[in-house]
């Protein structure tokens, strides 16, 4: 069997030699990039996974005890639950982050679409309006969050005192999450509008002229032509915004303070464990959970995205 096969694979071996040489060259060319990625992304990731299995303090990482998965889930013989996955506060943070993401991205998409359709039509001062609508997006999040915190203040704020007559929206994390969503929608709708506008401008105009000739209403044109054609641009925008919203941290930290931020955002919870509490192991474990959650959502998005376009 082996003797028979040798002459047959002789030719491919020679071709493979050329291919192998090209592959080697490719590897050599890619090597600097691969090393850079391994250093800046791979090593930190490895260290995070490594520390997630230890009980360690940030001030003294060398003194550590191996826990295995104890940072994630561990119940002592006295029935005390030590893993963060057993901490209701963690799940509260996850719930709030998900609520924040779903509601804010939904509202941003709807408002962004409306704004994009408006500024896409021809009217006087369109160029100015397109620039002006980006102002909220251009303000650093920390600044706009502080600005909104002043507006929500119950004793002198425009909203807290003026509109609501002295209600403290930010006092309670349950009501605060809606106040935070409002800030995010105000800030990022223009970004969403910009992405959708880019998609709108790539649509051919002759198609609409034909539709007008056929007597299709504007409403039908939007649902049957604009929206399906816009889908690729819209989905990219959605993925971007969802990822951003899942990682949200600055709005919570500025408007609610770091302690309450930990019960409203996943990253806030991770920061508290790692920085405030100096729990290197626990903080790393939480970071991995955040990483996994975001990754799963991205995979779901991307698969759904492909299914629709095949």
């Amino acid at each position, binding site marked *: 069997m082996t003797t028979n096969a040798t002459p047959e694979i002789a030719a491919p071996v020679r071709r493979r030699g050329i291919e192998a040489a090209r592959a080697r060259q490719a590897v050599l060319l890619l090597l600097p990039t691969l090393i850079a990625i391994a250093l800046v992304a791979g090593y930190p990731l490895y260290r995070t996974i490594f520390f997630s299995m230890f009980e360690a303090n940030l001030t003294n990482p060398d003194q550590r005890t191996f826990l295995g998965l104890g940072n994630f889930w561990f119940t002592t013989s006295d029935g005390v639950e030590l893993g963060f996955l057993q901490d209701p506060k963690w799940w509260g943070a996850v719930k709030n982050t998900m609520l924040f993401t779903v509601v804010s991205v939904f509202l941003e998409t709807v408002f962004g679409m409306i704004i994009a359709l408006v500024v896409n039509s021809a009217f006087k001062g369109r160029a100015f309006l397109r620039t002006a609508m980006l102002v909220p997006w251009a303000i650093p999040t920390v600044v706009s969050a502080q600005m909104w915190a002043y507006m929500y203040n119950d004793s002198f704020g425009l909203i807290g005192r003026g509109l609501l007559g002295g209600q*403290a929206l930010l006092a309670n994390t349950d009501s605060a999450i809606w106040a935070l969503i409002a800030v995010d929608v105000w800030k990022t709708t223009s970004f969403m509008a910009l992405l959708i506008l880019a998609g709108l401008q790539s649509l051919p105009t002759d198609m609409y002229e034909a539709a007008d000739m056929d007597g299709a209403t504007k409403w039908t044109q939007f649902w049957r032509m604009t929206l399906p054609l816009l889908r690729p641009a819209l989905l990219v925008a959605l993925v971007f915004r969802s990822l951003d919203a899942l990682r949200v941290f600055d709005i919570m930290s500025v408007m609610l303070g770091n302690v309450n931020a930990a019960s409203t955002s996943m990253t806030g919870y991770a920061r508290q464990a790692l920085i405030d509490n100096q729990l290197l192991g626990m903080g790393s474990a939480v970071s991995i959970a955040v990483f996994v959650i975001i990754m799963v959502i991205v995979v779901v998005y991307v698969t759904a995205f492909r299914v629709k376009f095949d």
Partner: protein
Amino acid sequence: MKKVIAIIGLTAAIAANSQAAAVTVTLACGAVGQELELCKAGADRWAAKTGNSVKIFESPNLTNDRLGLYQQQLAAKSSDIDVYQLDVVWPGLLAQHFVDLKGKVPAAEVNAHFKGIVAANTVNGKLVAMPWFTDAGLLYYRTDLLTKYGYKTAPKTWAEMAVMAKKIQTGEQKTNKSFAGFVWQGKNYEGLTCDALEWVVSFGGGTIVDDKGTVTINNAKAAAALDAAASWVKNISPAGVTTYGEEEARGIFQSGNAAFMRNWPYAWALGQGDDSKVKGKIGVAPLPSGGARNAATLGGWQLGVSTYSKNQAAAISLVRYLAGPDEQKIRAVEGAYNPTIQALYKDSAVLKANPFFGSLLNVFTSAVARPSGPTKSKYNQVSQAFSTAVSDVLNGKSKGAAAVAKLSTDLARIKGRGW
């Protein structure tokens, strides 16, 4: 051979000599208001006296940022900073990085300071830092409004305070809608831990975790204290009090919109400033009792010497000088920083600048320490769990009894494998 020994001996002697003669010590001190100015002046006086020189390291203003930076320096075993300015709740957290000053500073010198503050700086028998200035919670009140509504003295109990605040608030709100009876620090952060510890201790509910590390918070008196505080919100305190820190409360009090305020001594100097609407109308009293005692939470700053310092002897000398009576007196007179040395509260120059230092001496001597000593590196978690539980009660999410029971479970969880 003899020659070699002689040369080595000589070099060593010269080296030791030059080191003793000219050493540069780096001191990290705060830069809030006059703090940096006073710190530099004090360091310069020490430098002139000893012939050494001092480099000042400017720390960030926010306590949390400062802690983060210090922790980085210490974790890297950096010798860049020799003397650190430490918050009173940090010794437990950072003890391993600091030189044990016990024995290096004469016992008589240590004992001149308030006992409670020295205790807060002692972790497992190790004296981590020397007290520099202190803080304690105080009750500020409007002397003019108390007189207007027929009260002669500041309230002695929380219940009395609530009645007075309600009466003044009802009267004042007729002309000023945003007037509040009592403002304090209700935001979920370290400040709320300080305020709530005062309520709990004044009701006789203990200090959350006792000196032996046992969780004591789950008791009826602690629950009653939290329920009492919750009854103030939206009654004598604005709804937004649960979003206030020190400065928000001071802003309202100083613009004349509150009858009572809980705050630290720093608010005195600012309230008596020329741009203050309540200048000359402020009184300061001990915080009211909840039935057991008057209680004020201990705050303040200390000076510690890093174990990674290359000039420990000079650094210890600087700490002894700055924390000493002469320097503390200058700081009290010029900047109203509360001395930690008991005798200075009888000094006429200090009392002239800060009249309430004398009348409230026992507030400072009996100040209650937060449980940072027994809970060590987990203090931050304990404080967060406590302030979150209190915050839930204040926001009506939970009742006192349920909150302290749940908190007790949370603390057991944090304690986990030991403090």
